[in-house]
């Protein structure tokens, strides 16, 4: 293999694959990345045996071939090289790095020992979506997911496609976020609807490696997931299990309906939470007569504080406690002047959403008194 690349191009591609370079004591080659030049195209791949990323490198290929190199030393060298132009050449199991003024030889390993990345061959069925929409869908719900060994089925992001819409859903069983993208925001040629759960880490990686402007094609064969753009491929296993039937927790009997300024509520949470104790508890006192929400928190060793926010309130007054971080996570994904909060008393789930819009809902459980 013999290639010439620009430093920045190589660096970008290395960044893209960097996070899933494996730490596997059984198989040291997972600490390496595979550099491959095939019919003039140059790719870098990494894998942790759960997820794999293949990223194209813009550059000139003189001679096809492939080699694996330890990621950390290679990355270090490339990051610190001063010159723009870099020549890479594989000699046996070594890689030679050359610039006008610098030369290095890194011991690699035989590319034959690098895991074969399983791809989905059946490419007739896929849906295609703008990078920014896909990222919006994942980012909107990601913060509600949590990696849990006990509950593998919620350690990821559910993607539910039913022909007309795509729903992204994540939960850690204390709160749940659901984002719906409507038909106009993607094209779908899957014959049938399906539900898949992508593990959280690859979902996060997907957000990192996909560019807003790119079109992403999503394939799935029921046990694997593949996202492909012109210069990136991400393959990952799917979580095998059933996502909980979450539709039954979506609040149906709202007893207190509130519309309040989003920025003011965010600010209030940040300020008031200074006094919240370890469990991040803040109390919302809903006072319909005064058209006010009082956000209150106290700690026996620190003191107490409260913040009054004007709000439009219909329904009954109630005091309800929340983990303020959970509430604030929900507010972050709403990009409007005001937000709508629906309460069902102080022990049942509450919902946060955009006013007059159901494309994003965030459900959160209160803290018990």
């Amino acid at each position: 293999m013999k290639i010439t690349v620009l430093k920045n191009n190589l660096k970008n591609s290395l960044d893209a694959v960097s996070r899933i370079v494996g730490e596997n004591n059984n198989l040291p080659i997972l600490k390496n990345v595979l550099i491959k030049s095939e019919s003039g195209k140059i790719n870098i791949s990494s894998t942790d045996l759960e997820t794999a990323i293949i990223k194209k490198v813009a550059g000139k290929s003189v001679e096809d071939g492939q080699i694996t190199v330890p990621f950390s030393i290679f990355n270090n060298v490339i990051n610190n090289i001063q010159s723009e132009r870099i020549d890479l050449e594989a000699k046996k199991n070594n890689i030679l790095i050359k610039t006008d003024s610098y030369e290095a030889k890194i011991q690699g390993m035989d590319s034959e020992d690098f895991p074969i990345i399983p791809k989905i061959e059946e490419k007739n069925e896929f849906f295609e979506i703008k990078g920014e929409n896909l990222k919006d869908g994942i980012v909107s719900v990601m913060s509600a997911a949590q990696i849990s060994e006990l509950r593998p089925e919620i350690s990821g992001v559910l993607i539910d496609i039913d022909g007309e819409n795509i729903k992204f859903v994540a939960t850690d069983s204390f709160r749940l976020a659901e984002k719906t993208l409507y038909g106009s925001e993607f094209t779908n040629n899957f014959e049938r609807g399906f539900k898949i759960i992508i593990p959280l880490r690859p979902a996060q990686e997907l957000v990192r490696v996909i560019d807003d402007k790119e079109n992403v094609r999503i394939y799935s064969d029921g046990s694997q997931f593949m996202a492909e753009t012109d210069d990136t491929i991400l393959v990952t296993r799917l979580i095998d299990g059933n996502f909980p039937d979450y539709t039954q927790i979506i609040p149906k009997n709202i007893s207190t309906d509130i519309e309040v300024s989003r920025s003011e509520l965010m600010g209030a949470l940040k300020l008031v939470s200074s006094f919240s104790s370890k469990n991040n508890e803040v109390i919302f006192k809903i006072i319909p007569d005064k058209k006010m929400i009082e956000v209150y928190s106290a700690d026996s060793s620190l003191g107490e504080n409260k913040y009054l926010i004007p709000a439009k309130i219909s329904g009954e007054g109630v005091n309800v406690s929340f983990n303020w971080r959970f509430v604030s996570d929900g507010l972050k994904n709403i990009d409007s002047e005001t937000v709508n909060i629906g309460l069902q008393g102080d022990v049942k789930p509450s919902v946060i959403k955009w006013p007059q819009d159901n494309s994003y809902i965030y459900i959160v459980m209160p803290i018990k008194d």
Partner: protein
Amino acid sequence: MTIDELWIRSLGELELQISRPNFLTWLKNSRLVDNKEGDAIVALPNHFAKEWVEAKYGKMILGILRTEDSSIKKISYIVDGNITKKKEPLKQDKEEKQLVFNEFKTDPESGLNPKYNLKTFVVGSSNELAYAAATATIDEIGSKYNPLFIYGGTGLGKTHLIQAIGNEIHKKHKGKHKVKYVSSEKFTNDVIWAIRNKRVEDIKNTYRNADILIIDDIQFIGGKEKTEEEFFHTFNALHENNKQIIISSDRPPRSIPILEERLKSRFEGGMIVDISFPDFETRAAIIKIKLQERKESLEDEIINLIANKVQRNIRELEGIINKIVFHSKHNSSFDISHAEKIMNEVIEQSSVNITPSQIIKAVAEFYEISTTELIGRGRKKEIVEPRQVAMYLLRDMLNMSYPFIAEKLGKRDHTTAIYAFDKISNNLNKDPSFNQKMTMVKELINKS
């Protein structure tokens, strides 16, 4: 040699031929799942392993397997994520104030809520038979009573019992049997989803792969043709293969009005047991267990009072216990008179919105006659019983005066109303099936 032995021997051989890291990474969690007509199927935990083993060790494995069993012609590889053992969930006793979505506590694979078990199921004369049938089913899955059909009014423990059967089977047989619990509403939703997304095959697979299928409140699928049909086929498929089916309903199969005949007759082919109203002692025992679950206690006096007042619905019983426990905690001088007051409030609350016309309408609807007939003067047998029931209910639920009741139902003498009330009370004490009917009528009233 079983296929497991065959595979273990082959693995031993393979271990010698490939490096240890490679063996551990790629083959540790492999299994030979099938070996029929020379076609061996090897399951691997993920796609990476599949690609790798297929490409790098395919020939080696075939060679080794053939020396052990020369009939093997080829090997296919499949991916089975379940090979790597899932960890048993740890018990989380730590009391957290942060509330969680309760619905998520149910096991997503089986749909069972682990809180239901047989230990907390109080057995009395009213549910002895059902309990015995349940334990027999747990011991002899699929062969003894199949299907097992349990019916009884709301709040008497049907769901508890059938979920407990599922949980006990799971525990006893250590997950060897695939249990699937589903409410008929969920089943209907699944069918609708499947039809809309053209994935009926998926539904067939999920339900027909179960070893034990438990369906709650089957009466709700009546009249939903496609769901009934899907259920019918699922039922047949499972029953033919001696898979256990457990069904609950609020009434016996014969009395589910819009259920297809072929389904009714199938339900009757197994064991039908009912759960009726618990007697006083059973109720008191239930209250004690509920208190134990909450780690609370109440004086015997109060327990007896509750058991006496709340006769027909365990769920209502739970609500009252919660309320009384709450008040007794916050009021140091709490005694039986307080308890009595609270109970009267709750019981009144539940009947506060009921009007005489609601009762009349519900009775007419239940017996499928018109309200004009019911309040008319006709004395046909088909109308007399409903009319007496209506009279009884007006007295029992609303405590109306006999002359008023008689006036409302066809301008009769007040003695007619007294006679009706006595007759129905008598019947209720003697005839359990009549009791059943009455509960259903009451449910209708509460629903309207």
